[in-house]
């Protein structure tokens, strides 16, 4: 199913790209057009300084290195019609993993469509009365966010995983994050956007989500906004989005057996439904509603401070959201655990840097941020290289993974001392073997399902400086929701790449980037 979906996604994206290219070329061929070419390239390197959770893969001390380039064109076809298309290429490496895995590391290439968009706008201002974007396009309702936040359109609802990382897709608006339609309306200081977005990052694929965001700018210094996202509102296949007993033959067997066994179990060991009480059974769904609010406050303008301060200095901003309005079973029973909030502040750099920001986030979800039960396949969203090593079930589940899946029955931990027969390091069916030196930190630790509080706080420090108008340096030190690329655990096997790397307050990483754009 995943592979089929992937091909269909590839076809849809390719079709959008071809349509955009064809329209632009046809228009360009028929009459003179306003044409601009943009490019950017970068090299980046960094290191995961500490990663507490090594159950699946040990990322501690792993260097992350890559480079990439993008070519993009924008065409003014007529007074009101314009378009953009582009392609990008990133050269990446597997994560190094442990000393045995890193010997299999390969350099890989990821090609992608940066944008394939047609736009109709009544005028060319930033906030026209009417504008429509169609295709694959970028949209960011809070462009001051460097890393954390942007909850409305990043990540699933059930489970409520948050998304962030260095130059992540939705904060780096040189790459499209939406596939569908955006309708924009501007009225003075007010603007509103209506979005129809096809899901292409996470299963269930190709469901349609409807989003709405409104923003108002007051006194030139304060902007407030709010939005809603009806996530997976229109299902491409309701049997996947809302699994029923009849959806797939035997789909509920695992849950039936677990419930019937009479043994105590954690709800996260279930896959699709939960018995809450006699006659009260909850079937979990991928559908959900996100609501959120955000603000930015420019202290410079509010206080009338000017002079040597940089354009982005002293900006305070924040965001909160409810990831899933409806309570759902015992796993999603508390709204308070589904409400992340973040604050950011641009420190004064007096023009030495473009910005130096600090962002802090709190999110108290009590489950592990691991996508393997939801499943995803080579999503650009996650910079993945290859298929995940072990999707735990066939159909995507809206229930987060249980720690028991990792350290209990599915995974048997066998220590392989130095000099062991190399076969010791191999997979044994569904069991995973962990090399000596890896840390196992679950039972009673911060990753214990009863005690998943070690990752409630996230933080990020970002800096950027542009020279000569086109040359850019960027840096980030953070403990965020990074999902690192998988390791290569053998000639054909891969490991990791499906869960967050930083799971306790001790964890952090840094990234540096240099590049240019025109």
């Amino acid at each position, binding site marked *: 199913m995943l592979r089929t979906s992937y091909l269909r996604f590839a076809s849809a994206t390719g079709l959008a790209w071809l349509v955009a290219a064809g329209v632009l070329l046809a228009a360009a061929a028929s009459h003179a057009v306003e044409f601009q070419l943009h490019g950017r390239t970068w090299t980046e390197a960094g290191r995961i300084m500490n990663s507490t959770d090594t159950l699946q893969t040990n990322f501690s001390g792993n260097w992350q290195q890559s480079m990439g380039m993008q070519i993009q064109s924008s065409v003014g076809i007529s007074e009101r019609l314009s378009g953009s298309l582009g392609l990008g290429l990133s050269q990446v490496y597997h994560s190094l993993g442990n000393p045995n895995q890193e010997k299999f590391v390969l350099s890989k290439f990821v090609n992608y469509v940066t944008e394939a968009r047609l736009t109709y706008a009544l005028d060319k201002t930033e906030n026209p009365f009417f504008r429509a974007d169609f295709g694959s396009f970028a949209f960011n309702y809070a462009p001051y966010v460097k890393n954390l936040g942007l909850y409305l359109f990043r990540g699933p609802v059930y489970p409520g995983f948050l998304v962030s990382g260095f130059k992540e897709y939705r904060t780096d608006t040189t790459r499209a994050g939406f596939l569908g339609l955006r309708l924009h309306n501007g009225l003075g200081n007010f603007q509103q956007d209506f979005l129809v977005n096809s899901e292409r990052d996470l299963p269930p694929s190709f469901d349609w989500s409807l989003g709405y965001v409104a923003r108002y700018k007051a006194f030139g210094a304060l902007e407030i906004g709010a939005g809603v996202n009806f996530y997976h509102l229109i299902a491409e296949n309701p049997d996947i989005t809302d699994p029923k007993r009849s959806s797939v033959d035997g789909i509920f067997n695992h849950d039936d057996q677990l419930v019937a066994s009479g043994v105590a179990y954690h709800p996260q060991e279930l896959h699709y439904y939960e018995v809450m009480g006699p006659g009260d059974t909850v079937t979990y769904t991928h559908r959900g509603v996100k609501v959120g609010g955000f603000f930015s406050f420019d202290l410079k303008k509010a206080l009338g401070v000017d002079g040597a301060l940089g354009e982005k200095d002293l900006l305070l901003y924040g965001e909160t959201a409810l990831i899933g309005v409806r309570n759902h079973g015992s796993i999603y029973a508390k709204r308070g655990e589904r409400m992340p909030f973040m604050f950011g502040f641009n420190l004064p750099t007096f023009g030495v840097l473009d910005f130096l920001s600090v962002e802090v986030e709190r999110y108290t979800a009590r489950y592990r941020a691991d996508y393997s039960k939801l499943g995803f396949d080579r999503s650009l969203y996650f910079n993945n290289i290859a298929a995940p090593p072990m999707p735990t079930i066939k159909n995507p589940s809206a229930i987060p993974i249980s720690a028991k899946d990792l350290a209990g029955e599915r995974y048997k931990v066998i220590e392989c001392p130095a000099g062991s027969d190399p076969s010791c390091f191999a997979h044994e069916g569904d069991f995973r073997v962990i090399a000596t030196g890896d840390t196992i930190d679950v039972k009673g630790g911060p990753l214990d399902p009863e005690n998943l509080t070690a990752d409630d706080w996230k933080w990020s420090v970002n800096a950027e400086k542009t020279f000569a108008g086109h040359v850019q340096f960027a840096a980030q030190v953070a403990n965020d929701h990074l999902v690192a690329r998988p390791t290569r655990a053998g000639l*054909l096997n891969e490991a990791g790449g499906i869960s967050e790397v930083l799971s306790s307050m001790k964890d952090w990483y840094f990234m540096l980037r240099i590049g240019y754009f025109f």
Partner: protein
Amino acid sequence: MRSVIGYRNLILACLTALPLMAWGQDAADIKYKGAAWLQFGRIMHSTDSLAHGAEANNMNGNWVQAAGVSVASVAKFGPYWEGGMGIVALQSHAARGDLSVANNWYTSLATSVGEARVTYTRPTLPNHKLQVNVGFFNYNYNPDVKNLGLYLLRGYVYPGTPISGFEARHTIPGANIFGAMASYSIGGLKNDLLVISETENRPYFDLSLADVVTWQMGDAFSVAAGANLYRVKPRNPENNSPGRDCKNVVTGYNQIDPTGTEHCYILDTVSVDTVAGTSDVDTVFGSMNGTKLMGRFRLDPKALFGLSGSLGKQDLVVYGELGVLGITNYRKYYADIKRRMPVMVGFNLPAFGWLDKLSMEVEYYASKNLPDYGKNETSYSWVPRTAYDEKGLPLDNGRDDWKWSLYFSKVTLGNVRFSGQVANDHLRLFGPPDIGLASYAEVLSTPKDWYWMFRTTCFF
């Protein structure tokens, strides 16, 4: 089928992008360049298939064929800043190997970043210039080399690994350094200081520090010398300098020798007591880290003697290079520094404008170690692989001391280039596409071995 679809999309993308680029010349100082090429050739003779002792890597008579496209741009941002970026798509075909594995043969399509650099150049004093490169960029300290040589920045130190092949990466303008370089020149004297992140040979991401000093004396003569502190800052020192309790053994590649042999250290027999039937064996510890040294020269007799007339610009140029692949001796395999000193000499034959370059290069490298680097790539071993003949005796690894290469190139019609090569060099081919049989061994191991390659390039 999948690669065919990919190739069609690539062609479509290129056909779309190129005219767009041509129309898109805007006011900024951005220049575009591109090339497309097709190359083919044949391994005429390969004495042995050392990779794993099986016949699958028998390259005798194998055709080698590839096609590629590159598009790049150079952008200037004011008087001092410049950037370069590029994309390369290569359609390659794995070597077929032996007939027994011919059913595994397929085509692969790979795209890569051709260049991703930022450059800052600024004159400091009259006749002085500073240049800083950061990112993924090209650097070639010996641009006369067509094939053999360039020992300082190519290949391992232990085991000493000369790299060569037809229009191999370091001999063409594409990027080959991931890191940074600061160059300072005073007239004809130039110093290049490089910090290099290792991305070609495993372990990846170790840092090397290299320096090259070049002195250009008029148009006729230049000399250069350099040192490379190879992997001076290893990412994980335990990988590179494993010691006795190392973990540098991994399976998966069946060319790797059995566990328990010399993976992490050398076992050197120092004495044998034939009466008692015992022997003393020393354990020698070493490292993949090491120091390379290089010296080179270039002499253009045309400029020296004022010759001109019908001779081409490159004709009669003599050049040469000497390398030292590791200054530390380790017993048994690295005991004699002279066997770690490859030397090459090249001469541009007079082509009188019929060809741009017609070069003969000869190399002597007296290493007695087996030219198979699978053990190093897949086990992080600093110890060379050993191989034995049918009688259990070590293979005579001195059969490949001499290498040679005859190369030509010609640009015609302004934008079309032909080039070709006949050689017995250090060519390595990724073996037949059975991944378990991946080859890191040189294909040409005796004086009888040779191959030829031909390439047609269209560029703008």
